[in-house]
Structure formats: C-alpha cells, structure tokens
C-alpha cells in the first residue's frame, strides 16, 4: 500500500468512527465524536499540502526539497480553535447534566417551549 493510501484510509476510518459517535444520542459520545472528527480534519489539512518524505518544512540552502509549511500553520490554528470549542462543549455538557440530570441529547417540544 502506498503512503497516500495508508494516510487516506486512516483519515477515512477515523471519520467513520467520528460520524458514528456524533450520531449517538448521548452528550459524552457526541463530544468524543467531535474530537475525533477534528483529528481527522487536521490530518486532512496536513495532507492537503502534499505528502513529503525527508523534507522538513523549513527552507535550508543545503536541501533541495522542503515541505509546504502553510498547512502546518493552518492546522496549528485549527487545533487551538478545536481545543477551545471542545473544552466549552464539555463544560456545557457538564452544566447541562447538573441542571437537567439528563445526558441524552434529544429535544422534545416540551423542552423547547418552556424557554421563556
């Protein structure tokens, strides 16, 4: 199997698991699914700049080949943002559980109409 095939199937498998977890009706599984999804997405951005062997993402006069550094900078931003939003999601899930005593994520009309 080529390196491309290996990386692509790894991303595919992680995404599959993530989507499965995301569709679970429980807050914890949903949060895990989103975390895995962000891993898969970060890997995807990483390979969007091409796969490089033996090529560091820095310019070096002695080397002919250097990897594209921009996707790595993009991932860094995406990781920071993903980390913050996941942390918020978990805090919200805990608060929600403490207030409602219910970990399930479904909404019924009764839940939505007593919002006043």
């Amino acid at each position, binding site marked *: 199997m080529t390196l491309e095939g290996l990386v692509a199937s790894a991303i595919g498998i992680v995404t599959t698991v993530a989507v499965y977890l995301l569709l679970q009706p429980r807050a914890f599984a949903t949060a895990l699914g989103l975390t895995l999804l962000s891993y898969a997405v970060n890997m995807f951005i990483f390979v969007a700049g091409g796969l490089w062997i033996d090529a560091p993402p820095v310019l070096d006069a002695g080397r002919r080949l250097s990897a594209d550094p921009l996707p790595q900078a993009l991932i860094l931003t995406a990781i920071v943002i993903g980390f913050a939003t996941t942390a918020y999601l978990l805090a919200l899930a805990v608060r929600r559980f403490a207030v409602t005593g219910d970990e399930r994520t479904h909404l019924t009309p009764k839940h939505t109409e007593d*919002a006043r």
Partner: protein
Amino acid sequence: MSNAATALFTHLPILLIVWPLGWGILLLLGAARSSDHPPGSDHPETSLRRERWLSLSGAAITLLGASLLSWDAAHGAIRVYSLGDWPAPFGIALVSDRLSALFLLLTAVVAGSALAFAIGSWDHRGRAFHPLFHIQWAGLNGAFLTGDIFNLFVFFEVLLIASYALLTHGLGQARLRVAFGYVVVNLTASALFLLGLALIYGAYGSLNLADLAQRTAALAPQPLFLARAGATLLLVVFAIKAAAAPLYLWLPTAYSAASPPVAALFAIMTKVGIYAIIRVHWAVWGGESGVLGSAAFALLLPVAIVTGLLGVAGALAARTLSRQIAFLTVASVGTILIGVALATPKGIAAALFYLVHSTVTVTLLFLVVALVAAQRGEIGDVIQPAPALRDPVALGLLMLLAAASAIGIPPLPGFLGKLYLLEASLDRPGQGAVWLTLIAVGALTLIALARAGVTIFWHTHPKRITVWPAGDSRVLMQPVVALVVVVAAMTLWAEPLYRFTYAAAVQAADQTAYARVVLERVHFSAPWTRPYDGVLPQTEPPEVP
C-alpha cells in the same frame, strides 16, 4: 484630507476588529472583578452601572467606526489593509469595499439596539454579557472584512464561540438543552469548513479570495475537480450558517430559546452565511457563469424556494411568538437567497436590499415580542388568549408596523425589497417559481402574523395577572423606537439605499478591479510554483518592497 484622517481611514479595517475585541477583554476584567464582591469593593449596582456605561461607549465608538468606513466605501474605493505589511496573497489582508461596509453598518445598527435593549433588562441575569457581546461583534466585523477564506473560518469561530456562551445567557433548563445541539451543529459545520478549505488549498495553493478569483480559469482538470468539491462543501457550510433548507432545523429552536436581546443580535448571524455565499461563491467563483459557481448555483434556487416555503409553514404552525419570529427569519433567508440565486448584479442588489430590511425587521420583532411577553405574565409569548396588555396601543402599533414590513405592505421597505426581487427575476429561468414563492410567502406571513396579532391583542379576558418585571420599559422602548426610525428612513430613502446595494453588487462582481487593488504589490512574473511542489525556484525570489 489631513494626515491623521488618512491614517485613520487606512487603519479603520483593523480597528473595527481590534477595538470591540479589546473592549470585550477590558469589560471581561471588570466582570471578573465585580462577580466576586470582596469586602470593600464597589456596590454591585455601582459596578453594574459602570459596566453598562463602558459597554455602551465602546459600542458607540464601533458604530462610529462602521459609519466612517461606510461613508468612505460609498465613494467606491476598495481599501486593503495588509497585516504586518506582508503583501497579499502571502500575508493576511483585510479588504473593505461597499459590500463589507453595508454589512458592517447593518451589524452596528442591530448590535447597538440589541445592546441598548439588554441594558434595560437582561444583562444582569447572567455573567459576562457585555464582554461576550463585544467579542461576538468583533467576530462579525472580522468575517465581513477578511480577504481570505482561512480568516473567514477564524472569524466565524470567534463569533460562534461568543454566541455559544451568549445563547446560554440567563441559563435555565431549556437554554442549556438547546445550546448543546446548537454547539454540536456549528462544530460539525466548522469541521466541514476546514475540509472544504483544505481542498481549496490543495487545488490552488492559496486561500486569498482575489488570488482564487484570478486563477480559477487556469486550473488543470484535476485541481479543478478538487476545487469543485471544496466549493460545494463550503456552500453546505454557508447554508448551515445561513439556515437554508434542509439545514435550518437548528435555528428556530435556538433563537426562540435565547434571551430576547441575544435573539435580536443573532438576527445578523444568518446573514454572515449569506454574505459568505455572495462573496465567495458569487463574486469569486463567478456565480452561474463561473466554472465553480455554476454547480453551486444550480442548487441554490430550489433550496431558496423550499427554505422560504418551509419557513413560513413553520411560522403558521408555531405556538409561541418568538418561535414564529424565528421561523420568519428562516422564511426571510429563503427570500434573500432567491435574489442571490438569480446570480445577476440586479438580483444580488435586490437580495441585499431585502436583507437589510429583514434583518432590521426581525430584530425589531424579537424586541417587541419581548416587551409583549413581559406584560403577559405567566403566559408570556404563547399565542393564546390572555388578560389585556398594560399598554396595548403602543405595543400594538409597533407590532403592526414590524409585521406589515415583514409581510411586505406598501410603502414599507419589505414591499420594495420584494418588488426589486420580482423585477430582478424578469426573464430569468425560474421566473414563475420565484414570483409564486414570493407572493405565497408574503400571503402566508400575513396569515401567520394576523392570527398571532388578533389572538394576543384582541382575545383578552379581564382576569388580573402578575406582570413580570422586565426592567424599565421606558428605557426598553428607546432601542425599539430607534429601529422604527431606521425602518422609516429605509422607506424614505429606499432609492439611494438600492443604488448603494446595486453599486455594492457591481463592485463585488468586478474581480479584476478587486484583484488589482488586493494583489497590487505582487509581481506575477516572478518564478514561483503554486500549488507548491517542493522544489524551490532556482532564481532569486522577488524583492519584497
């Protein structure tokens, strides 16, 4: 112009982001301090009053900045601000033109009135309302000003993370339940956004909008295939943000659960998605005639029509007023997208005109409904008979005006917006469907709002109830009256406004002029390879001025 004024206008784009962000952080320091109340500190009410004054003065300056930028953009100049003086497309560029300015000013009007309303009633029912409000404002301004797709993503996240917290403002079971779903939907959308922009980067080796527009024609078939996949993913993301069918289901639940000033501010959030579709899919990828836009725009007209019809059907079925207004927001998104889907400058101009009107009207409706609900005690905004309101005449007239504009009764701007849309669709494919939808949506909105209005204002019974303290209603009326003045001004100066939106659409579509300004410091004759293939050019890289 003097030097100071020139410098101000040069730095205005970045100031409009940094100012609200910095102000939010400053207010956060105050909020953190006042929440502890250590012995010897200010009385909580004194610090609350100080926080309100600080927040309002910060908002006034942002509003002033947005007005100055709009005044400047109205002259037709495109301004580019290169962060750290790195030239685009390598550095980050903020670009302000008429389209950005229109949205910035609209945001300022909506946010300013929502903030003023919050100060009368809601801001002290939870923590850190004012800091979050300004941070969301900074995110909105950034999204409208950014010149590349990645920073569009970043500013989406900034405004979203503030909105996650604002949605739960006031807490309560329902808001916490609803907020979880809202956050999950938006995080999933963000993941799709990243996938889309990674595909775009893979195809172009660039994420700068002006650069993308210039190089689409030269793409080889394989990168073009990647770019098309990326463009379609981005359309899905923007449709989620804009709440287009079938991806609108998060909106009515979230907006009707939010506290009224937050719901009023959120009226602008769906418009960020619409702005992104106009800017990226229409202006950059050439809409219907462009290679990449065509696939997206083939989908957009049916989507827009279904959104309009489903939104108004939801409004007919809604049992509470705030849910009804939330569904009318969806219906208005459908109406706006019809104009966008026409993919002509005239269609976009009509869509923008209707967008300005509907955002202001929806904000006004959310605020008026909050006032009505507060005078009905336990029953709140449920559409059912209840004891009479305390001041039925003032609130009834306000509700009537807002409803009439939402329905599109002449001479209000809602009517003019629909008229411009009908005119723009003349001799375009799908004209019959567009006309039928616009008229049906208007008629059904009339039925929905008339039913609600009749039940709430006329079906009263004389039982006494306890009225909820919703703050000083005289203070609460001020932002509402200000919004009424805006609607009146839009009625009186509809023609200049339409001329402005038309000029904005024409300017946004002119990608050659846009690229000339944004990319003026780049020498395209220099040897470079994009997408990057790992091999450095053998000659010297071009001198950076």
